[in-house]
C-alpha cells in the first residue's frame, strides 16, 4: 500500500470528528487544499489511489471516481458559492475519460456554472497530474432556509501544526 504522502497545502478532511466512520471516511483518506479566492486552487479535493479504491484489474474504481466527483460538486461548489449548508445532489453525469492506477494522486476541481435560488449547476474534473481522468456535471439542490443540520467536515491541520511546532 503506497503512503498517501499528500503534497504541500493538502490536509486530511475530517468528516466525522471522532464519531463512527461515514462513507466519506470509509472510502478515504480524502485530502483538501484551500487556495486564494478566485484561483484554480480555491478548492481542491484529492486522494492517493489505494488498493481498496480499485476494481479487479487494479484500476481506480468508477464508483470511487463518482464519489469523489460528487463531493467536489457539493463541498467545492458550496465553498465557491459561499453556501454553508448540505447540498443534496439531484442529478449527475460522468464521462470516464481515462483510467488511474494505484499510487496516482487524484485531484478534483469544480467550476460553478450557475447558481439559482434553489439549484447549483457545476462542472467537475478529476485529474492525475495534467491528465483529466473524469469529467462530470452536477445539479445540486440548495435547500431553503438554513438547510439540514450537517456534521461539518473540517480540515485536520494537526499534522501540519505538529510538524511546524518547534522541537525545543
Amino acid at each position, binding site marked *: 500500500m503506497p503512503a498517501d504522502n499528500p503534497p504541500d497545502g493538502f490536509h486530511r478532511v475530517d*468528516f*466525522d470528528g471522532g*464519531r*463512527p*466512520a*461515514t*462513507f*466519506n471516511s*470509509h*472510502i478515504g483518506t480524502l485530502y483538501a487544499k484551500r487556495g486564494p479566492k478566485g484561483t484554480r486552487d480555491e478548492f481542491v479535493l484529492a486522494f492517493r489511489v489505494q*488498493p*481498496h*479504491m*480499485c*476494481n*479487479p*484489474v*487494479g484500476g481506480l*474504481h*468508477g*464508483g*470511487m471516481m*463518482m*464519489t*469523489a466527483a*460528487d*463531493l467536489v460538486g457539493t463541498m467545492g461548489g458550496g465553498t465557491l458559492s459561499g453556501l454553508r449548508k*448540505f447540498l*443534496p*445532489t*439531484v*442529478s*449527475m*453525469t*460522468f*464521462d*470516464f475519460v481515462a483510467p488511474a492506477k494505484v499510487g496516482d494522486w487524484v485531484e478534483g476541481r469544480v467550476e460553478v456554472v450557475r447558481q439559482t435560488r434553489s439549484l447549483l449547476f457545476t462542472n467537475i474534473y478529476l485529474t492525475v497530474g495534467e491528465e483529466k481522468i473524469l469529467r462530470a456535471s452536477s445539479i445540486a439542490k440548495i435547500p431553503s432556509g438554513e438547510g*439540514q443540520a*450537517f*456534521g461539518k467536515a473540517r480540515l485536520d491541520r494537526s499534522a501540519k501544526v505538529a510538524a511546524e511546532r518547534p522541537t525545543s
Partner: protein
Amino acid sequence: MSIPPGFRRLTETVGFAAANGPWFEKVENGRSVRGFVVGPQHANALGIVHGGMLAAFLDSAMGTAVWHALGRRSVTLRLSLDYLGPARVGDWLQAEGEVVGHDEHVARVRGRLYGRRHDVLAGLGAFALLSRQRKLRTGS
C-alpha cells in the same frame, strides 16, 4: 435485516466492491438483480446513503446486465444519474440494468436502483464493450 430468497453473496469481489460490501446477486431468466443492506459505512452523517455509493452500486449492476445480455465484458464510458429519493441505514436496496441497444463497440443501458417502497436512483449509461478475446487479469 434478512436477505431476500434467491440472492447469493458475491464472494469474488476485491478492492472497492469488497471494501463496500457485502453485495448480493440473484440471476433469474438470464437477468441479474443485485442487492445490499445499507450500513452506517455507506451513509453520510444524516444517515442517508451517500450518492457515490448509490452510483457505484448501480454502475456495477448495469455492467453486469451487459455481461448477461451480450456475453461481453465492458467498461463504463458515461453514466447519467438522477437521484429520486433518499435511502437510509438498514434499507435493503436492489439495482438492475437493462440493455436497450448496442452495436459492436458500445451498449446503452438503463438502470434502476430501488428500495422496498420507492425508487432511489435512475440511470442511463454507455458501456464500451471489450473484445471477446480479451481476458481480464483479476486478483491483482
